[in-house]
């Protein structure tokens, strides 16, 4: 599934009423199964871009086409459903839900997509990320690396066609960064899933076949 952004504009209205442009992207494309590292400075609009692509927010104008669907034109419930079924999300701070075990956190992603909870697949994925022995542990009892691996398993459970990762290695120590990155990339390759990974680390970006600087195609900043 490919991603194509065309003439995407997004501004925030400041308290004094003036519009602060965040995104102004004429063209951006990600092919099906492609893996890109998107590098940008803080405040460069990286997170806003991910929110626009995932349909959490809508652009002021422009097209955000995933596969053949312009997500910007969908209603909010449709965007939510599309996100749940087609897009995986990995956050910088993992964002696991404290009330649920590792297995339940993975199953939760399935519940919101309207699928029947497939415990076998969830366990399989957790096994792949090396957490077979930690299925029933809550996030508070898992190490940072383990939490990030649960987050990876959760993002892939619905077999997404596009995986958005927002600084997924930023909270992981240097020793585990490569492992987490390898895990994400391998999983995406196996599932033929396009990967857009946002990072400010040149070291992380260097491991990707394609690296884009946000400032090169975002004219708002």
């Amino acid at each position, binding site marked *: 599934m490919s991603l194509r952004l065309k003439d995407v504009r997004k501004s925030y209205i400041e308290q004094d009423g003036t519009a602060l442009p965040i995104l102004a992207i004429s063209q951006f494309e990600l092919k099906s199964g492609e893996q890109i590292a998107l590098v940008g400075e803080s405040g460069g609009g990286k997170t806003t871009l991910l929110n626009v692509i995932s349909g959490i*927010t809508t652009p002021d104008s422009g097209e955000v086409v995933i596969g053949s669907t312009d997500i910007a034109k969908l209603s909010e*419930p449709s965007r939510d459903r599309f996100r749940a*079924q087609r897009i995986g999300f990995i956050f910088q701070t993992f964002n696991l839900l404290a009330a649920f075990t590792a297995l339940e956190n993975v199953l*939760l992603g399935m519940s*919101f997509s309207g699928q029947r909870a497939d415990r076998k697949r969830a366990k399989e994925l957790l096994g792949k990320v090396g957490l077979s022995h930690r299925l029933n542990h809550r996030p508070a009892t898992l190490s940072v690396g383990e939490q990030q691996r649960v987050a990876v398993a*959760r993002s892939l459970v619905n077999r997404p066609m596009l995986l958005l990762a927002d600084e997924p290695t930023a909270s992981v120590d240097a020793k585990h960064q490569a492992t987490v990155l390898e895990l994400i990339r391998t999983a995406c390759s196996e599932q033929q899933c396009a990967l857009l990974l946002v990072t400010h680390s040149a070291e992380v970006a260097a491991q990707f076949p394609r690296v884009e600087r946000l400032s090169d195609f975002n004219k708002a900043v």
Partner: protein
Amino acid sequence: MNLVTIAWKSIRQRALASSLTALSVALGVMLMVSVLVVHGIVNRVFSQSTSGYDLVVGAKGSPLQLVLNTIYHLGDPVENIPYLYYKQLKEDPAIEHAIPICMGDVTQKGNFRIIGTTSEFFLLPYHPNREFQVRGHLLEDDFDAVIGSQVAKENGWDIGSQFQPVHGASDGHVHDEKFTIVGILGPTGTPNDKGVFIDIDGFYQIAGHEKPLDEAQKKAKDFAEFERKKAEAAGVAPPELPDALPGEKPAPSAHDGAAETKPAAKPDAHAGHDHAGHHHHELPDEQKEVTAVLLKFEYVTLAIRTAAKINGEPYAQAAQPFKEIYWILNNVVGNIRWLLIVMTVLILVVSGVGIFVSIYNSMADRRREIAVMRALGAQRSTVFWIIFCESVLLCAGGGLFGMLLGHGLVVFAAPLLEAKTGLLINPWAFEQWELVLLPAMIGLASLIGIIPGMTAYRTDVAKALQS
């Protein structure tokens, strides 16, 4: 995972806060249930027990006290009325049943009231279409006794068991006469379950239950005089009543008879009595008294007319049990019930506000959690229903726990209430009101859940994820 499971796990995550919130609801419901159950029991006991009789006739005084004492075995008897008066009532063709009641003694074990009466007492239904069930037989011999189910259970008595009555006054004198249990009543849910019924003739044979002769003589004369005047005024022949008692010297008496009037204590309490066994002397009617007479009429209009006639005379009063109980239920029990219900409803509302505050405050901490769910694809309505379910689960869980606690409280308090009031409490009695309670709690929870649910619904996902 469905919404209820997700909500339940969120509740469990905040176990302490959730438990305290649910507990506050449970306490409110517990109070309400216990009030409803006890009120229902009191209502039932009072209304069931009055339905068998049209009038209670006893000495002048408080009609309410007369009814409470005679039918519910509560409090002390007002005074006694002459046995001759009972005989007159018995012969009145307008009266279908006239049942004498004599009180004053209790059992040594369990302190159960002993009631001297006739077998006719058991022939009337204690509640419409509910007749006494007796294992064994009714009162046949003078020293026969029939006991209520509760007495049998608590004292472990059975047919053939014997007991000696104890004088009910503070002296605690144990009578020599032994009564034998010949029948055991089935449970009725009325104060009769805690009654010990002995034959009225046996009652009069208990030493000291006779009216002192001099006093009896005076009363008999007064009564005869009054009857003569009444007959003259009506232009009919006066009834045949003795104006003097048989030439027997006044017998010394230690007791004032059946909760009886107050004869002076005599130095030789039991002179002339056979302490070893039963004392079978026939007491003259003039020396007998009854505490009350239960009357049943074929037509209620006759009861009203008879009540007016009795109340117009100086010897007795006639009280309508239904009227007295209706008064007490409406003016005392009813008001207390409403007061308690209003208070418990207020407690429930306060508990509801507690749930609201608890969930609403938690929303600030949970903005990120909600945003994550939304980012994973949960719709606005999904997060609304999760929060709504939490509110309903807390209220319903607290409500159910409160219902159990309420009945538990009644179970715990039942023996104490029974001992204090003499009423029989069935702690597992279920009130129809309770069926309304749970839907009402869910209704309250729904109201409470709307605002926090809307807060979840409106969460700005992008902002919350960045925070």
